[in-house]
């Protein structure tokens, strides 16, 4: 019974928060002076970028914990977080391009933050491909954990490399361009909260799926052994 309530609470809360944030983006946040309505992409775009990176961080933590402790739960956490994080980074990339076109006249510019999102996206995809190509369950989980660690560690290095490489270009997204008013900040924070809860709900669902798969595999193994 209690499990059922908590099982529904998280998805319901995430839907509510998502709708609230959506409402704030369109009806509460003021129209930005220089960029107009397109600037409204900003709220969810930044929120998904944040959560996407956070998902990667969780994968990193899960990977380290798995190597140290060896408990399957950590492996499941790393796997689920990477899959959910990939969805968020994909959103960041696509909407970033949709924002870049009207704002700067091109779908893609090699702006550092956009570029690092692309790098993260490629890393997530490589991680998923590795997950898909593994046979030995335990050993495969260790491979994925090592990759999760190495991949996360290269993100800050990539960030510095890309930023130095692009310093010649103007910092288009820096704070000076867009004056953030208090209502804008509130909207951004609510969006951030909504995306975090959404991430948690999806993560939980993905972890449950993996646990059920484990249970099925155990059942089948027992069947075979009996």
């Amino acid at each position, binding site marked *: 019974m209690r499990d059922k309530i908590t099982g529904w609470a998280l998805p319901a809360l995430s839907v509510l928060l998502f709708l609230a944030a959506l409402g704030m983006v369109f009806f509460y946040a003021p129209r930005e002076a220089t960029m107009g309505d397109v600037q409204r992409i900003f709220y969810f775009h930044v929120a998904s970028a944040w959560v996407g990176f956070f998902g990667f961080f969780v994968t990193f933590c899960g990977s380290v914990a798995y190597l140290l402790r060896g408990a399957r739960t950590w492996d499941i956490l790393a796997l689920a977080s990477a899959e959910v994080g990939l969805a968020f980074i994909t959103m960041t990339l696509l909407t970033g391009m949709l924002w870049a076109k009207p704002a700067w006249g091109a779908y893609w510019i090699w702006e550092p933050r956009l570029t690092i999102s692309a790098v993260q996206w490629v890393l997530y995809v490589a991680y998923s491909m590795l997950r898909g190509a593994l046979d030995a369950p335990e050993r495969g989980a260790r*491979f994925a954990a090592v990759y999760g660690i190495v991949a996360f560690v290269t993100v800050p290095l990539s960030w510095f490399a890309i930023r130095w490489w692009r310093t010649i270009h103007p910092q288009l997204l820096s704070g000076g361009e867009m004056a953030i008013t208090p209502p804008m900040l509130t909207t951004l924070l609510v969006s951030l909260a909504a995306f975090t809860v959404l991430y948690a709900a999806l993560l939980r669902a993905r972890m449950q799926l993996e646990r059920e798969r484990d249970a099925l595999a155990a059942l089948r193994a027992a069947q075979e052994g009996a």
Partner: protein
Amino acid sequence: MIEFRGVTKAFGAQRALVGVDLSIGAGEWVALTGPNGAGKTTLLRILATLAQPTSGSVRLFGLNPREHGAQIRRQIGYLSHRTLLYPDLSAEQNLRFYARCYGLNDSAARIAPLLEQAQLTARRHDLVATYSRGMQQRLALARVLLHAPPLLLLDEPYTGLDTFAAEELTAQLSQLHGAGCTLVLATHTWEGETFPAQRALILQRGRLIHDAPLGERAAFPALYRQVVTQGTSQPPVNAGVPAAPEAPSAAPEAPSSAPLPGFWRQVGAILAKDLAAEVHTRELLSAMGVFAVLALLIFSFALNMQGHAAGAAVPGVLWTTLAFAGTLGLSRSLAREQGTGGLEGMLLTPVERTAIFAGKALGNWLLMLVVALVLWLLSAVLFNLVLWEAGMLPVLLLGTGGYAVVGTLLAAIAVNTRAREVLLPVLLLPLLIPLLIAAVQATGGLMQGLGAAAGGDWLRLLVVYNLVAVAVALLTFGYVVEE
């Protein structure tokens, strides 16, 4: 000598061993039987310290394999399904390499009689790849006996041997047993194998269902059939250790008192082995070199690199070419280890895991450096550029070094996946982004004559990348190779 308490080994949901209790004393000869998939190989691999149990405790020679791996490994000889030999090396080179891994000082004196015994003295300089199955099997046994281990683990040693060879093997094993060796021999067909074991274990679906002195040999096949079909042993499983004839516990001419080889000597042995294999085959260097030259030519057509345009494009082209050529060499270099189980052979020796990594990474670094040198010279000629600035050497060393470190780690992962060579670039290239940006920028700065000052920041990034890569790789490589 061997103590198992409630040992269980699970592969995901599949359980290969379930609650095995077992103790084997010094000087015993134990036959391990059971149908296919009963867990015999898993049991032997745990004994050989190649695998760790999921639960339960294992003690070998009174030591915990997790803590005293190196000490235990030098007292164990494990004959696997695979030969664990390098086909690209000669018989003598193979044995000399393993002797160095075990830290044997008098390797030449050890190797000569073993080659004689394996009847390979005449062909000791030929590559193992040219040997027949029987010759490889004999050499594999010589590898197992190299360090005169007091405990021998043999996984189906009679498979593929003709009657004479089988008799010869039995004679050899009996002699070793007589000299005080403990033998654990796994077999799935009992008929026809006439080795004088004293005690028989039967495994079925991971459980030890029979443990008793062998007794009447002729009666065993019938007993075996009965036990396996019923799933339990009629007389209860032998609880205690059967009274084994107390053999002299001193191992035959045990050289284990010699100190373990130092870290850098281990690295040197692995590096020398890789270089020797490369000298024999020349496959890595030629493939990488030709690929690099081809890529350079194609880039020059595709990007229309002439005159001024060349200057801007060359650094990027060089490092891109190097990155792609590198994945070819890395895949092959690790596939060499995987093919006949060379990596497993190294893991059986007291060599440290980090030394294995360092040896492989160093070898790959050398290869990358040679290819880079060829590329740099070639592009200097083709595009009429002054490439040799004083600051170029650290950029080259750090660029290829970071690549080799991360690449070796990832190749060790990719070689164990289904997609193998295809997956390696997909996994590796995203991780190299900061390295490639820094290397290209530093090279470009140097080529434009901006001097070392312009490349300073990039050089620093390269140093940081290398340090981080080495630290992460050394910390995680053990998890990659462990089963």
